[in-house]
């Protein structure tokens, strides 16, 4: 796993997203101990403080929780929280950008929705 180091996104955010992906992929189950800041630093060759910031970001969102002296653990409902968050934030932001771009390109709402439909045909057929 290599981080996207093009510099446009702060590394600690990339770290937290990577951890979320690991949880979504099932590499970390609930109640399982997750990488420490030092392990993360070692894996990605980044400063441990940066890694810690990525971890703390997830802790703040309660996707991870701290056990004193033991480290960070995956919260029981971490997966759901991540999915919800991605829906609310990531997807929403993407849609925002999509709409803005459509507006700039003078694509009407109708047209846009049709485009979305055409991509989603596979799912619609189910």
């Amino acid at each position, binding site marked *: 796993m290599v981080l996207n180091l093009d*510099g446009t996104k*702060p590394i600690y955010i990339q770290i937290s997203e990577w951890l979320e992906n690991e949880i979504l992929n099932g590499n970390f189950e609930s109640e399982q101990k997750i990488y420490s800041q030092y392990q993360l630093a070692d894996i990605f060759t980044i400063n441990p403080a*940066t890694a810690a910031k990525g971890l703390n970001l997830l802790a703040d969102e309660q996707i991870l929780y701290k056990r004193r002296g033991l480290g960070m653990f995956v919260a029981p409902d971490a997966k759901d929280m991540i999915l919800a968050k991605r829906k609310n934030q990531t997807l929403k932001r993407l849609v925002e950008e999509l709409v*803005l771009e459509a507006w700039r390109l003078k694509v009407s709402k109708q047209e846009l929705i049709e485009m979305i439909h055409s991509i989603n045909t596979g799912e619609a057929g189910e």
Partner: protein
Amino acid sequence: MTVIECKEVTKILGGTKALDHFSCRIEGDKITGLIGRNGAGKTTLLKLIAGYWRETAGSIEVFSERPFNNLLVSANVIFIQNEMDFPTALNLKELLEVMAGFYQNWDRALAERLFEYFSFSPLQHYKGLSKGMKSTFNMIVGLSARAPLTIFDEPTTGMDAAVREDFYRALLKEYLAHPRSIILSSHHLDEIEDLLEDILLIKQGQELLHLPMSDVKEWAVALEGKVSLVHEWIQNREVLYTKSTGFHQSAAVRNDFTEAELQQLRLEGVRISPVKASDLCIYLTRDSEGGIDDVFNKG
């Protein structure tokens, strides 16, 4: 725990102020990047910290002592620079032995392994090494010394990309295993930014910026859009950089926008993107307003 504290430090070299009322405070066990252009005073600052030079005015303290001519500072600081004056009579192996005698925390095993890994031969002499090999050897010395304050001044000069990678990795692993205060000076911020916890930006002998690396990316923001639009938004703001191409203008400004303002910007069709840390440093440390284009546009 403060490792280095500079208060209004001035150092005059050859009639010019290499450092001009420079103040900063560096906390312990952090990797700090010292970034600045050539001649900004990086090396001068480092030499003052290492106790090689005497400050002209102001006060500088390392481990709460004045570093100049100070045995405690000398024993606890290793200063790695480009051309190390290693004694010419000794070969590389002997140099490492001598260093081991001087630095109490010296890790012989580590030095040995790195020495082997980078395929040095014991009978080689430092003077006979290529520039890149010299830097690599310096790096071995700097890491193996395990000095509580480890200073690397432009450590990767002449190293090829693979060795640079190895160096950063080795530095980080050493730091993880034995945390210590490290100062890395470089003008390749791109390469080292991931390693850094803090960044200290220096310009014309003065501290320009000193903040955690993770804040640097949010410190400024780049706007891109129609000239008139962008121009309106950047008025009364701290503009770091602007460039216009035809109808479009891009600008880097200090990020003091509110969330609402950003939303508004997006709606108006202004592209917002973060400013890369290395670009930010270039903008900030630029000596003159404008850029190289202005030189050509004058005509």
